[in-house]
């Protein structure tokens, strides 16, 4: 019993202070977002001020903020769909079928991340503008983003597929399933946690992307969240701090809640779904 108690103590002693430190910026963001804009620099008003929701109102009613969130969500979901469609078969193939070649290809996955987008966006803008004719359209992002979400998704799914015992598939094959049928009917349902994980990681990669979003998208209504906020809330020398803080909090909290909810299933999946 004392062992378990000690473990709990260890957990609290580690998690609580770290969570406090990690979460403190968000707390301060919340406080700042409630301040009237002209008081943010007042040293006498650090904590004593009349909280107001004016910044949230400004964000939602006087900028295209809602539109940017919608754009980011659309792009995110579309990219997730494409990523899953491409990475699942590839992950399976690399985990099961490809042997030595598969392992080398697995390493090659990392190598695609070694080229920074700070460089790639130039040739890609030509591709988008001239060959695909997608300038200033969200489709340009939907087409380009999978290039950096797919490799990571493949790695994740490879890991998941490896934990699914070969015997399950072999049993299905002996029962007369084609290999493809075994894939669809046995393997994929078990890897739902893996799929959820890919969804989380992919969505977060999409939401964090900035360079391609600023180069391919022009008009204000087509902007994604990371691009729209700095443009409309930073005016030359004027930073609208409460507005910026509100803009960060509004999507982060729901997203963190969703990630948290998925986390349990993700962990369950990693422990091998078949025998639980």
């Amino acid at each position, binding site marked *: 019993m004392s062992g378990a108690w000690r473990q709990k103590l260890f957990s609290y002693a580690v998690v609580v202070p770290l969570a406090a430190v990690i979460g403190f910026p968000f707390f301060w963001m919340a406080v700042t977002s409630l301040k009237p804009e002209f008081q943010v620099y007042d040293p006498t008003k650090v904590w004593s001020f009349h909280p107001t929701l004016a910044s949230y109102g400004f964000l939602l009613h006087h900028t295209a903020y809602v539109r940017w969130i919608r754009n980011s969500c659309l792009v995110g979901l579309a990219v997730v769909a494409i990523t899953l469609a491409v990475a699942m078969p590839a992950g399976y193939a690399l985990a099961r079928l490809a042997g030595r070649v598969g392992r080398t290809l697995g390493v090659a996955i990392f190598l695609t991340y070694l080229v920074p987008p700070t460089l790639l966006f130039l040739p890609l803008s*030509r591709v988008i503008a001239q060959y695909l004719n997608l300038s200033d359209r969200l489709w340009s992002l939907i087409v380009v983003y999978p290039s950096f979400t797919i490799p990571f998704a493949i790695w994740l799914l490879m890991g998941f597929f490896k934990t699914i015992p070969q015997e399950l598939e072999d049993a299905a094959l002996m029962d007369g399933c084609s290999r493809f049928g075994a894939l669809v009917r046995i393997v994929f349902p078990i890897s739902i946690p893996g799929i959820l994980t890919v969804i989380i990681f992919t969505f977060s990669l999409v939401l964090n992307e900035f360079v391609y979003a600023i180069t391919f998208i022009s008009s204000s209504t087509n902007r994604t969240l990371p691009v729209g906020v700095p443009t409309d809330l930073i005016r030359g020398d004027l930073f609208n701090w409460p507005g910026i803080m509100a803009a960060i909090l509004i999507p982060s909290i729901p997203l963190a809640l969703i990630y948290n909810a998925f986390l349990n299933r993700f962990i369950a999946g990693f422990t091998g779904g078949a025998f639980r």
Partner: protein
Amino acid sequence: MGEIRDGSPAGDRLTRRDFVKKAAAGAAAVGVAGAAAPFSFAGPLRFKGRWLKGDLSIIQWVHFVPAYDEWFDNTWCKQWGEKNDVQVNVEHINNTLLDTRAAAEVAAGKGHDLFMNLHPMASYEDQVINHAAIVQEIQAKVGKYGALGKASTYNPRTKKYFAVSDNYVPDPVVWRHDLWNAVGESPATWDHVAKAAPLLKKRGHPIGIGQSQELDSNMALMAFLMCFGGFVQDEHNRPSLFTKKTIEGVQFMANLYKNGEDSAIFGWNPASNNNYLYAGTASMILNAISATRTPEQLNLPFVDDLWIWPIPAGPHGRLGLEHVMGCYSIWKFAQNKANASKFLADLCINYKQATLASQLYNFPSFPGAFPFDAIRKVAAADPHKPHGKYTILTTIAEKYTHNIGYPGTTNAAMDEVFSKYLIPQMFARVSQGKMSAHDSVRDTNSVVKDIYAKWKKRGKI
């Protein structure tokens, strides 16, 4: 709760944004009332209300003064479009992102017809048309291109206008008259500043001239250096940084930092020196009039003590730079070159309205469009105290504003020196005691020489 600020009734708090909007609208009304009717064009708008045939796409920065963007987007572009049967689309992005977008548009071979940047895009010379015809057209209507504009957008080597500047922003010092008075000084010369700085710092009000990797520091330090006779290039566009005068200037600023400034100046972004002032800390900064307009709108307690003067004089004289310069370029691959040319010409010809809409932030690069005397009269009518303080802007614009790269012209090499923040770096290393002034200048000069050699090889200098 005792939160009432001087001069404002309690319960009358508006947000900063409301203030900016209201004040801007008010000022625009005042300014425009001093001009003619509030319409952009005389005569009927022939295509009003109809579907417009032509196209024109423009990209430019988010103007510090929201009223300017409102005027530009909703009045000027709309009416120009209706008069010329062109659908005008304007896009605004942060000025820091304009370079990225320019590179992307060139790489893509496709982009906006009119590209505006806050610095002349000299390195893009090969990607843009020769704007000479546009310049002639404007000159025919309002008189000669100002020396500042021409030196910034013309390459004497290739004889090409790589951009047309519609406006520039004069760069004064903004200083706290009450604080300086208390120590019996004023920033007439840099020696005066050096004398007052320790006294001011002791009272908790240091000077605020940035030495960071950002625009304001770049401008302030380059201008300061010019006052001491230090120039990055000479009149033949050859590097000339490594001189005794430059070293003296760098040393002077290092001493000024040690005695009269705060180490905060090394970690600034373009908004920081403004905020330093608004918080009541700074006794002097070098900035465009955004630094006075915002305190007016926020009704800060010391707003009437904010004075605007030209840059202090140094041993070599009183030389300043423009704070930013609006430059429009038309890509070679633009699809609506004719519309773009006409738009640009019309804008520069009618620039008086733009200047007024920007609350005197933008000064026309073709001075004939709004002569200095006329601007002075409008500035004199500004209601803020001390009365007539904005008239000095005209003097600064007329006499003390030079192009980046003075006494030479603005070119791609100068642009690269600017974009890599070599000058702030040169100063900061010395101020923080990492290098002697002599070594810092020498090292920076060798980097500068490499850059110039490179662009010379490309035939641009």
